[in-house]
Structure formats: structure tokens, C-alpha cells
């Protein structure tokens, strides 16, 4: 059903019409809205993908971020790596996630962003390193458990959980009393999952 069930049964032309209209609910939900639209448009295969690839140059931030997220990996119309230098954190973050999906060896360029001012970007760096360099990821992730931003701490916990890295359990335990409820939730889940792995060995 997705986030906007009213979009589910629209044909491609109607989805395209919505693409040019303001987001339902206003700018606050634009990222979620155009994400759903791009996802559904791409489900229309070649015609939908062709439409989105033609919109790259015309798109504002929420629409471009949706294209970066949902245009198929390695599509010729999108030179993902160029967007690593964008000055919009959301675009950089989506680009890092896209580069990981494209299996492009950009570890050095992405690692250069690990101290980026935006927590969204720092979180994406953690996801990228976990997938592309799982052996060396734990040190970076454990360091990120102390990041000043809750989004980054939460992301670090999730990546340690999903690696999985049972050695990180003692470090994650300290976040059970984190000031932010999302970090607490991530920590509780990770410890349950990692302990579950230990007990199944």
C-alpha cells in the first residue's frame, strides 16, 4: 500500500501529472511524497524510467533526491559520483546510498565525508562503509556511537546490528540510556539480535 495509498492505482500519465504538482501535505512531506511517486513511476519500467531520467536536470531537491533513490542503479543518465560534491546534504546522502547500490568503488571519496556537518551525510557514510568494507567498518561504527547527533548514533547501532558485530555489544549497551528514544530503541533491538546470534552458536 505504501505511504500514499491514493497513488497506488494511478496510471503512468497520472503519476507524471502528480510529479509536477505540489506534495500532498506540503513541503514538510515532500521527500516522502516524491519518493513514493518515483518508486511507482519506476514500476512502469522503461517508460517511467525514461521520464525520470529526463527530469534530472529540472528537479528541485526533493524530486532529485527521489530520482537518486529510485532510478535503477548504473543508469546512463545519472553520473552519481558528481553529486558527492553537491552543497545539499540530502542530495549527498542519497548519492552515497546510490553509489553503494551501484557497487562503485568510491570508498576513499565517501570516507572523506565522515566528518560532514550534516548528520544525514554522516549516517550515509556509515551505511556505505558497512556494506563496502565490512571488515574495517566496526572501528568507524563504534567511534560513531559517540557522535553528537542522535541520527548518527542510531545509524551506527543499526549497522553494527546488521553487520553483525557481536563484539560491539558492550559499546551498544551504554546507549540503552541514551537521551534520545530512537537511539534507545535501536540499541535494545541490536543487543537482542546480537545476543540471539551468540546463543545460537
Amino acid at each position, binding site marked *: 500500500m505504501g505511504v500514499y495509498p491514493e497513488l497506488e492505482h494511478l496510471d503512468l500519465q497520472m503519476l507524471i501529472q502528480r510529479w509536477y504538482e505540489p506534495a500532498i501535505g506540503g513541503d514538510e512531506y515532500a*521527500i516522502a511524497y516524491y519518493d513514493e511517486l518515483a518508486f511507482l513511476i519506476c514500476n512502469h519500467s522503461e517508460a517511467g524510467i525514461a521520464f525520470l531520467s529526463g527530469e534530472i536536470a529540472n528537479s528541485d531537491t526533493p524530486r532529485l533526491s527521489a530520482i537518486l533513490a529510485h532510478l535503477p542503479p548504473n543508469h546512463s543518465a545519472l553520473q552519481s559520483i558528481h553529486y558527492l560534491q553537491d552543497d545539499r546534504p540530502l542530495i549527498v546522502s542519497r548519492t552515497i546510498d546510490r553509489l553503494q547500490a551501484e557497487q562503485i568503488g568510491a570508498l576513499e571519496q565517501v570516507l572523506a565525508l565522515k566528518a560532514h556537518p550534516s548528520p544525514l551525510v554522516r549516517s550515509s557514510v556509515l551505511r556505505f562503509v558497512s556494506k563496502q568494507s565490512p571488515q574495517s567498518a566496526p572501528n568507524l561504527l563504534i567511534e560513531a556511537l559517540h557522535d553528537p547527533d542522535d541520527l548518527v548514533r542510531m545509524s551506527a547501532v543499526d549497522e553494527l546490528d546488521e553487520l553483525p558485530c557481536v563484539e560491539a555489544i558492550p559499546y551498544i549497551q551504554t546507549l540503552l540510556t541514551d537521551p534520545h528514544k*530512537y537511539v534507545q530503541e535501536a540499541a535494545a*533491538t541490536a543487543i537482542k539480535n546480537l545476543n540471539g546470534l551468540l546463543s545460537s552458536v
Partner: protein
Amino acid sequence: MISKDCNLALKLLTQYERLAAKYGVKLPEARIAVLDELRLQGGISSSDLPATLQRIFPGQLQGLTLNEIRQICQTG
């Protein structure tokens, strides 16, 4: 069933609000309420999730409800 996939699927189906926030996605309150109700009943599935989370959902568990996944993952 691979434990890693089970853990990720269950996390996505129960903690969608905070996981969407990692990608900069803010969900409408009305939709969160619908998802919360589906989660409570165990009927939420990958197709109910925001597109960004659907993309990372473990393939072999796509389309199954939370209750079904819990059953599968318990029995291994």
C-alpha cells in the same frame, strides 16, 4: 531462514518511523497511525512501508505479514 534477514525484516516492520528518518523521510502523521494499527494487529507487510524502506527489505520475506514472518523466523 537466515537470521540476519529475519532481524532486518522484523526491524523494518516495527520501527519504520525512526528508520525512515535515517533517510531524511518524514512520514505523515495519519499514515503513521495506520501503520501503527497494522503493526499492532501483525498485518503490516513490506508493501505498506515507505518506498525507501521497501527497497532494502529482504527479498524472500517481501509481501509477508509481520505475523507470518515472526512464525517463519521462529521455526527457522
